[in-house]
């Protein structure tokens, strides 16, 4: 993809907090990373996980606990959450990749429900309340992430924003590198024709498991970031709604495209925030949008655009 497009996107990311409501921007970055991590599995390996909220939410609890109760600095909290998600991904993945298609999805869903149950019942997760008032803390013990600057009369947590933006770029780069690596080539081969990949001598289980762990770890990182932004880890993060939402974002934007999940996350988050005044009708509106989009653009926004331009985006 062209270099200029990347530069434009980075510049947009850098100036965004001066133009858009920064918490909205940060939420967007968290969910965009979550969707990109999910897309690594669905779009590039052909595995539909229906339990990704377990990694997103699980990591957000772990980060919350480490920072709030353990008193760790935010970067260590995020590292802890990410590692936890990777480990959980290894366990879930080891079981799930033994089956294919809908059975794979069902195993991931079932295991994610177990994580939900633990989050509801365990003594350190705060039950129905979740973990509230998670401190943002000082990055490396020096930079205060809670500090706000006055922009246009309203306080903006610029330090936190740029920390989140940097993490997003790191996560996105890992995904981009993975897709465009020798490893990524084999993943695409597995997606295209698994028996043929086996007959070429690739141990597809190992490749699937590695992809699953990478995807889970990055979904976890997104959840960890979220818990710092909202200072909250809640049951919503681990619920199956969240697992479904990330499927929706990825399909809307374009599965198997690099930029699709970004666009999908942007669309869903914007709709949610713009329509928050209409109350519970919001699910109906998003549902209708989804149906219309899937009927009109089967490859998602970016997928259809890529087809028009005859380029892979």
């Amino acid at each position, binding site marked *: 993809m062209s270099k200029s497009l990347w530069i434009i996107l980075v510049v947009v990311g850098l100036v965004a907090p001066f133009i858009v409501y920064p918490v909205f921007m940060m939420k967007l970055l968290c969910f965009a990373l979550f969707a990109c991590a999910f897309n690594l599995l669905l779009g590039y390996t052909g595995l539909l996980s229906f339990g990704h909220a377990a990694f997103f939410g699980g990591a957000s609890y772990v980060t919350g606990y480490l920072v709030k109760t353990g008193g760790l600095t935010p970067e260590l909290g995020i590292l802890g959450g990410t590692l936890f998600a990777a480990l959980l991904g290894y366990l879930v993945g080891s079981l799930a990749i033994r089956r294919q298609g809908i059975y794979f999805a069902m195993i991931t869903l079932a295991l994610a429900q177990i994580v939900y149950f633990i989050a509801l019942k365990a003594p350190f997760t705060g039950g129905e309340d979740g973990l509230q008032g998670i401190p943002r803390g000082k990055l490396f013990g020096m930079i205060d992430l809670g500090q706000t600057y006055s922009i246009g009369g309203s306080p903006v947590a610029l330090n936190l924003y740029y920390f989140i933006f940097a993490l997003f770029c790191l996560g996105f780069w890992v995904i981009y590198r993975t897709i465009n690596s*020798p*490893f990524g*080539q084999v993943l695409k081969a597995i997606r295209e024709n698994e028996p043929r990949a086996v007959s070429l001598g*690739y141990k597809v289980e190992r490749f699937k498991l590695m992809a699953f762990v990478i995807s889970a770890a990055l979904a976890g990182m997104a959840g960890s970031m979220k818990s710092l932004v909202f200072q909250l880890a809640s049951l919503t993060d681990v619920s199956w709604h969240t697992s479904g939402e990330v499927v929706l974002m990825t399909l809307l934007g374009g599965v198997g495209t690099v930029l699709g999940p970004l666009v999908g996350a942007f669309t869903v988050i914007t709709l949610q925030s713009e329509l928050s005044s209409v109350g519970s009708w919001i699910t109906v509106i998003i549902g209708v949008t989804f149906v219309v989009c899937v009927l009109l653009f089967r490859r998602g926004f970016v997928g259809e655009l890529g087809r028009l331009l005859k380029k892979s985006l």
Partner: protein
Amino acid sequence: MADYILETKNLFKEFRGFTAVSGVNLQIQRGHIHALIGPNGAGKTTVFNLLTKFLTPTSGSIHFNGDDITSEKSADIALRGIVRSFQISAVFPGLTPRENVRLALQRKLGVSYHFWKSDAILLQLDGRVMELLEDVGLVDYADEITGELAYGRKRALEIATTLALDPELMLLDEPTQGMGVEDVDKITALVRKVSTRRTILMVEHNLKVVATLADRITVLQRGAILAEGPYAEVSQDPLVLEAYMGSAHA
């Protein structure tokens, strides 16, 4: 004593009471083109699937170069040098022919798990990729989307991909199935060309192809071996004539 690259001993495969393969003793001589023929449902593809471990035999054993490989996994068998093609063309349809062939070569570089490296390191394989595509006449299509190629070209690509692994033993499952006359001749010539320095076991319906290519033929019927020998001999066997040739020439 003849040098056998692949042997099966008393191979059985049952599916819920139905015996698809029943006591098959197959011996493939090194360097031969060996054809497996038989009427529909004779168990040819099942034998293939057993040999490459896409199915597990109910009983019996499989030996490759003298080693018992009965309990090995598909991918390990491929690593040993037994590579198969499939009845329906086995390509990666969403990738280009260049990428298809490169995937077969890539394994030897030993970087396939390296998700942190750029795929630019795979460009070093392009010379060999183009040679292989040249061999099967696909150079002009190297960067098209494979799924959009004509059927005969997909089969040619599949052979190029299989060749890229430089297998000791190539298993071809109906290489000319569904092809026009012109393509059949091309594939026949191609199989002959690639058969130097390696052994080929093929399932084939087209008896003209079998007569031209095969050094030795095994005829299967209802999962068991009916006859075996060179084409001239087998084609005169009254049992075979009755079971298979008769209907084929009718």
